[in-house]
């Protein structure tokens, strides 16, 4: 993770210039049809999602994420589903004691493309949107500030907890705790690691609550934002088109069933 602890890639691109809500709508315009509509739609939606990474000039970090995170996950899911999904008749081949059927593979393929569309479109949102801007935009549109804060601070504080866990591990290893050996030994060493993390986090949560409250977090005044977020007529038009797409795909589903 980069030093700024977010996925955001600070370059200029048509995607970066879009209003955060427009991009969020795009995410839902991909995910909802992929999951709600006919299964065949998901592989088609995967194409615009993939291309959008190039429009956003974030293809490199995106492909990186794809290779390291998304592909391993969906490959695993594909294999599991192909092997274990019951009810197929056309047996293609045997994998050990399991039958792999055409129907199972087909179904697995559609499931993983759905997952691909979901994770990829979210990744694109995070890669091309500064998290503060997303939060500011949503709060200005009426999302409760507390709600936005919980989302964004969780994203920020998770890497912090990781860092704290590292310190605790270092402290306990310095006391002769062997964390490098067998699994059984490792399981036994969990309490000294988890307990300070939990107690520490509880104390931190309380102090952080005080700190943000002291800075007017629950003030009843209308919040302002440091960032000016543009919302062009192009954004508005695009959002309408995306909403229509969502509705159309849902209608298609109802019509076909």
């Amino acid at each position: 993770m980069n030093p700024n602890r977010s996925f955001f890639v600070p370059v200029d691109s048509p995607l970066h210039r879009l209003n955060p809500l427009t991009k969020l709508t795009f995410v839902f315009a991909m995910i909802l049809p992929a999951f709600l509509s006919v299964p065949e739609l998901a592989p088609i939606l995967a194409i615009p999602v993939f291309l959008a990474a190039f429009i956003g000039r974030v293809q490199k970090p995106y492909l990186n994420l794809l290779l390291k995170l998304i592909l391993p996950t969906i490959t695993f899911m594909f294999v599991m589903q192909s092997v274990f999904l019951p009810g197929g008749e056309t047996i293609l081949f045997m994998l050990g004691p399991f039958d792999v059927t055409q129907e199972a593979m087909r179904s697995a393929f559609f499931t993983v493309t759905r997952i691909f569309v979901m994770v990829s479109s979210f990744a694109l949102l995070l890669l091309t949107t500064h998290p503060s801007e997303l939060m500011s935009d949503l709060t200005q549109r009426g999302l409760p500030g507390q709600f936005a804060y919980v989302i964004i601070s969780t994203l920020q504080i998770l890497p912090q907890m990781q860092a704290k866990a590292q310190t605790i591990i270092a402290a306990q290893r310095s006391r002769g705790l062997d964390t490098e050996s067998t699994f059984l030994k490792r399981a036994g060493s969990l309490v000294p690691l988890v307990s300070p993390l939990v107690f520490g986090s509880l104390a931190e949560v309380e102090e952080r609550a005080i700190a943000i409250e002291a800075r007017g977090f629950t003030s009843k005044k209308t919040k302002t934002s440091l960032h000016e977020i543009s919302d062009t007529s192009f954004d508005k038009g695009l959002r309408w088109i995306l909403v229509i797409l969502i509705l159309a795909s849902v209608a298609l589903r109802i019509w076909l069933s």
Partner: protein
Amino acid sequence: MNIEIKGLRFTYPTGLEALKGINLTIQSGEQVAIVGQNGAGKTTLVRHFNGLLKPTSGSIFIGDWETTQFSVAKLASRVGYVFQNPDDQLFSRDVLSEITFGPRNLGYAKEKVDELVQRALTLTELSDKTETNPYDLSPTWRKMIALASIIAMDTPIVIFDEPTTGQDAVNVARIANVIAELKREGKTVITITHDIDFCAENFERVIALSNGQVLLDGPAREVLGQEEILAQTYVDPPQLTRLGKRLGLKETVTRQEEFLQALK
């Protein structure tokens, strides 16, 4: 047990070069304070002593062990390390089991563990609190529990990272007592500290780090008198040293008795 550091360089994965060629020998039984501005590399340096960090280049020997050849858990039998924040290590339901954890990990016989734990409890004035939950005690006492839990490991070398931060005068005196006792037992004590008066009163040798390099190294009196050089790493000389200078005393003084003697 000596510590031998040769040509130590360390670069963090982020690319930050924190140590830029350190050469040091710390003799068995020395009391060493490491001072220097935030980010000078103090913590990075001492984390090499028990193998938490491994050099990018150069070497560290703890006695005849090269740190790269041993696990941290193994090195823990030679180097005890008290972390800055006690809450990063306290996990037990009572003080006694917390302090027993380290020596037991090192595999000492039960009688020896009991004896070491008792000694650590006495030294840190925790004997009347053995059954208390560490989290029911004040942060000051939690600091003492952390100290005790490392001292009980009976390692020839003990490292303290900022032991006096946030402690009141009474507890600072307690910590100074612990350090004096370790000295009597012939142990090597290495302390990172911003508290320069504490440093002057309890340590014989001072190493000033700046920007990943050794700026000054020598007997406390010599190092702490070099006002201009210390300023490079944002350290002021001790109060009495500054006073002695202003009064035009010929010798650098660091402690009260020295000062009063020089005044006559």
